[in-house]
Every structure is written in C-alpha cells, then in structure tokens.
C-alpha cells in the first residue's frame, strides 16, 4: 500500500507547495479532517485555519483562508485564496485579516450576519492557534 500521496497547495498567484505527504489535516468548513492515502474522493470548502501536512521530514503548517480542497485517488489539492507558511505569518497580517473580517461582520446584510460572525471567530481562533495575539477593536 502506498503510504505517500501527492499534495498540492495552489493560490491564484502561484503554486505554494507540491510534495509527497503522509497525511494532510484540512480545516474544512464542516470541521477538521485528515486525509491519508486512499481517502474517499471528497470536495470540501475551507474555513480560515491551519493546514498541516506530514511529510517524510516532518510537519509543515500553512495558514489558509477561503477556497476548497479536493481529495481523490491521486492525492490532495488545496486551492486557497490566501495561503502562507505559518512561519511567515506576522502579527500585522493577522491584524489585517481580523480587521477585514470585523468590517465584513459590521457591514453584513442580516441574512449573512451569522456567516460573517463565524468568519470573524475563525480568524481570531486562527491567530491564537499560531501563537499570535489577534486584537479585536
């Protein structure tokens, strides 16, 4: 049994990662999920969160927001609007994302206010998770 699979992380501007991995932990909109080789074909949208992949050398984390992940027989492809290796994410970037989410929440149409509240909460959780201090203003 193959214990590695192809993993691609693609943003609109470039291909951020393309490597062989043991498993990928994906922050799906319905909850975290771990994809390992041989996972059933699946397409899920993403919520802001940390995407972790386990390679032969160790674990690599990426911060991703917006987009979707596709799991099939050949591997995992994650299409994210914004993606950065966790180590490159700075306090300013988190502040910017939280501020943007807050603005959306404030201006939100009543019909989507729940969705924007969730987005904001996700952003804050994401910031705390990677050891930064997201400030609510």
């Amino acid at each position, binding site marked *: 049994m193959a214990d590695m699979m192809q993993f691609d992380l693609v943003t*609109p501007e470039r291909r951020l990662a393309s490597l062989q991995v043991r498993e990928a932990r994906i922050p799906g909109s319905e909850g975290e999920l771990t994809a390992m080789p041989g996972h059933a074909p*699946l*397409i899920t949208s993403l919520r802001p969160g940390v995407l972790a992949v386990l390679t032969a050398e160790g674990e690599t984390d990426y911060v991703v927001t917006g987009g979707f992940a596709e799991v*099939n027989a050949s591997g995992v492809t994650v299409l994210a*609007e914004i993606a950065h290796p966790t180590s490159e994410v700075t306090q300013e970037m988190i502040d910017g994302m939280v501020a943007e989410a807050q603005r959306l929440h404030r201006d939100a149409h009543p019909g989507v206010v729940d969705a924007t509240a969730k987005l904001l909460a996700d952003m804050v959780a994401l910031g705390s998770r990677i050891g930064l201090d997201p400030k609510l203003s």
Partner: protein
Amino acid sequence: MPSLKALKNRITSVKSTRKITKAMQMVAAAKLRRAQEAAEAARPYAGRMNAVMAGLAVSVGGSDSAPRLLAGTGNDKVHLLVVLTSERGLCGGFNSTIVRLARQRANELIAAGKTVKILTVGKKGREQLKRDFADRFVGHVDLGAVRRLGYDDAQGIARDVLARFDQGEFDVATLFYNRFHSVISQVPTARQVIPASFEGGQGASTLYDYEPSEEGILADLLPRGVATQIFTALLENGASEQGARMSAMDNATRNAGDMINRLTIQYNRSRQAAITKELIEIISGAEAL
C-alpha cells in the same frame, strides 16, 4: 533642399528617438518575461477551479435551486461590458483591438434593443470608448498605481461587479481582453463571466463526497470563480500589453534606423554637391582670368 545644418539636426534627433524606442523595447521584453511567468503561475489554480466548477455546474445546473450566478436572472436585457485595457500607450494596436471588439459588440446589442453598460479598467480604453458611449459608463477602475498585478486587484473588480449584479443592475457580464498568443499575436477575446459558462464541462469523472452540499460549495465558489477569471484576464492582458509594446517598439527602432540611413545618404549627397559647386566656382573663376 534642406540645408546641411538642418539635416544634421534631423539625424541627431532621429538617433535619440531610436535610443528611446530601443530602451523601451528592452524594458518591455523584461516585463514581458515577468508577466508571462505570472500568467504561467496562475494557470494551475484557474485550471483546477474551472474543472471543479464545471463538474459541479453539470450536476447542479438543471435544478431550480441553482445559484443565480450560474443560472442567470432569466433575462438578458441589460449587458455589462467589462473592458480591460492598459494604463499606458505606445503599444501598437493593443488597446484599439480590444476597444474595436467591445464597440462592435455594444453596437450589436444596442441594435438588438438591449441596454448596454460599460465598466472600464485601464485609462486607454476609457478614453477611446468615451467618445461613443459616454452616457453608458457605469464605472472605471484605475490600475495606474499598481506596479505588480496581484489577486487583490482582481478581487476588487470582482467585488464591484458582483455588488452590481446583486443589486440587479445587469443580467449578463462579459469581459473583453487580449489573450496572449505570442509576442507578435494577441487575440482580442470576449468572455462571458455572469452567468458563468464553462468550456469543456463534462460531468465529474469521479464521484465525490461534498461538504457541505454541492449547492453550498457551488454558491461559495462561483464568486471566487468570477474573481479568478478576472485575474486570469488581467494577467493575459498584462502579458499581451508587453508583447504588443515590444513588437511596436521593435518596429519603431527599425524604422528609425532606416530613416537615419536615408537621411545620412541625403546629407552626404548634399555635402558632396556643395563641394562640387565650390570647385566649379573656383575653376571657372581661374579660367576667366
């Protein structure tokens, strides 16, 4: 016959023009390489996105619950033409070809009794379209300050277009841009983005589980799809612009070279003529003695 001095000035001035066009050509070549790389790097995302949405569109498309971005408003009365052009000139026919295509389409639609609205991106297209369609303008996006085209810029335009769609300002949106084919050939292209249309959409080959539902994912993806298509169009346009400028400047440099040769021959001839004339004067003066 211009004087020797005038000819000499003329040659110097054409020479400095040639220097400028040569420099612009080289700058365009360097920028073209960057633009092509950017377009290349964006391809996997757009390709995957398109494939997944095409698959979803086939399975959801028929149902009543299909999102409006896919199914349309049921009308095609009001058309929004999004015309993408460059901020700078001196790039040959680049802007004119896009504008010509957009103008032709606008006239067809008007003749068919539809309402046409125009949104321009880039200064050059606005200047050219303003002459004929000034009253149909609904907006303009200025990318003059943008040094490196990013996804954010496309998102901004997409947000604007989607907000207008949500308010029912139009039924159909079409993008006009130049598709990059090669340095010497750019193809003006019209592409419908709302309602979404996909090329080569056959049903998903594998059966996927969807989280949340197919409709949910599609509703989430369609707005992103619009942004992605605009981004792709902007990048193609960027590469085309540099390609067009490069070949235009190459032609200009060559023409300047030809002109310098012609002027130099003319200069030498008139100098020779002046010398001959002086000699004749001296000789005939000596013979008269």
